[in-house]
């Protein structure tokens, strides 16, 4: 009776897992089938052989590699900037005392409520004004100096660190900079990893802003080019699926490598509110 119940339980879990992981598997099946097979066979059947033609067609199609590179570059700059400047601000809000600190922090918090779209129109006009449209700068500039959400998350965590350690370091004459690099960063590793992941996923997936602020091919990013492929190759599913997988695979790799930290970090961001 007991074993039967466990069996049913695990079968249920597996069926649910199929729903969540299935689209990825099917996308791989579809992208690895030659065009003729995609329509003659059922979508859930395994590809006969490892047909890499779709990936090759996509990767060598005009500019795709470049878009991939653009996304990688912009995401890297955005992540490094957002996390570094965010750590600085979070440390100051959590551990330094200066006039106007709490008032300033509430301004940061208030901006959390502003929907993304509200800032899109004015940001675009600003970028036009400064002749920055169609540049890498325009894509990452609004997000590279730190975002209130990750600053908030890191501040909460830094505040929970034991204050005696900081007091002792100050007494030893350590500068704020030294305290930050030698104490806060090592001790705040979990939340810094969280912030890094949030920034990376945001940068990699960002769509609306790059769509608006770039209109030439040379600065297009991956997400925008996938959306464009979808409308131009509308019925060549094998190609569009291959293109989508190029965007998805790096995230799958990151997830496989950091699965434990990701799960923990999401929970950290919920509990630390």
């Amino acid at each position, binding site marked *: 009776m007991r074993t039967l119940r466990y069996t049913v339980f695990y079968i249920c879990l597996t069926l649910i897992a199929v729903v969540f992981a299935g689209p990825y598997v099917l996308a791989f099946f579809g992208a690895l089938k030659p065009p003729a097979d995609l329509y003659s066979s059922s979508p859930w059947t395994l590809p006969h052989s490892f047909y890499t033609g779709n990936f090759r067609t996509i990767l060598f199609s005009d500019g795709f590699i470049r878009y991939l590179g653009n996304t990688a570059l912009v995401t890297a700059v955005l992540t490094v900037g957002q996390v570094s400047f965010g750590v*600085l601000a979070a440390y100051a809000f959590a551990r330094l005392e200066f006039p106007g600190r709490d008032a300033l922090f509430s*301004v940061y918090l208030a901006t959390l409520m502003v929907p993304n779209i509200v800032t899109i129109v004015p940001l675009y006009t600003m970028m036009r004004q400064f002749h920055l449209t169609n540049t890498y700068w325009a894509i990452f500039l609004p997000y590279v100096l730190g975002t209130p959400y990750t600053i908030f998350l890191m501040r909460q965590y830094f505040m929970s660190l034991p204050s005696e350690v900081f007091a002792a370091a100050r007494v030893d004459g350590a500068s704020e900079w030294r305290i930050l690099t030698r104490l806060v960063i090592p001790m705040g590793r979990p939340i810094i990893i969280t912030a890094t992941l949030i920034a990376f996923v945001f940068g990699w997936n960002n769509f609306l802003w790059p769509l608006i602020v770039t209109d030439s091919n040379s600065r297009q990013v*991956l*997400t925008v080019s996938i959306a464009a492929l979808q409308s131009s190759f509308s019925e060549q599913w094998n190609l569009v699926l291959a293109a989508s997988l190029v965007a998805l695979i790096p995230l799958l790799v990151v997830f496989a490598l950091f699965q434990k930290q990701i799960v923990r970090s999401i929970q950290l961001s919920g509990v630390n509110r």
Partner: protein
Amino acid sequence: MTRIAGPREARADEAGRARGLREGGPARRAERRPGWRRRIRSLAAATPFILPSLAGVLLFLVVPVIIVLVLSFFQWNFLTPPHFVGFANFGTMTRDYHVFHALETTAFYVLWNIPIQTLMALGLAVLLNRKLPALGLFRALYVLPYMSTPVAMAVVWSWMFNGQSGLVNHLLLLAGIHGPDWLGSTSTALPVVAMVSNWQYAGYNMLFFLAGMQTIPPSLYEAASIDGAGPVKRFFRITLPLLNPTLLFVLVTDVIGSFQIFDTVYVMTQGGPGTATNVINYQIYSTGFRNFDVGSASAMSLLLFGVILVVTLAQFRFFRSRTTYEVS
């Protein structure tokens, strides 16, 4: 590095003594020194830490909000000089059928998205909130969709819901049913788009519920079992009420996100068929960046801002009015 190693208490003690010594003499005078000097020094010390992010918040969040307020009073197409029109943009907006239809579509989208997604997340959390082998693996698999690019996943789902070659209709055909053209029909397009979000975020939200459930003391469940409460009763009388704070957090953040749906709509339906999936964000995008009506787009984005604020406040009100239990 500065040596912080060694017994910390002893260090702190030493420090205290050292400070005492110093304070004996010249420090007295320092106390009488005007406070603003110290304040300026502390401000100077904090400035390099704060400055980059402050520049970011001011330039890319605060200033844009001011600009959007100003723009909403102008008629402008990015090229010719802006033209002041007073409240006209808001006036046309209240008369514009498209805006209200878009808001209505967004509301329907949120209703297709949030309740199902939250129930899925709760259900998954209940399933996984136990100590059995391999549950970590399943938990990871359920969270996996959260780490996907919405644009790319929208392509994959468009393929699966494709009328002719899609998986869904293939499966339905096995059961002898001829499935509809899901994304090409006004009655099914919006629910399908919402379903993609449900798929993407159910596992992510499950993590918050799991974390919340793990803070509930097991003694409560034991006591309830002794009193003869079955699993269903225990869930509704213990788990759910104690999850109120988590539920509020999940609902508030999800509803804010749901009102701003864009990527999947852009890829899967382009707002169509007809205007069946023309959500407010898509309407703002096409008004501002396809019709170049900057003033109206600004006014609409302020309207969305207002709607989100009201809905968020309403949720806080609703949850505050419900009994919350303190468990220590």
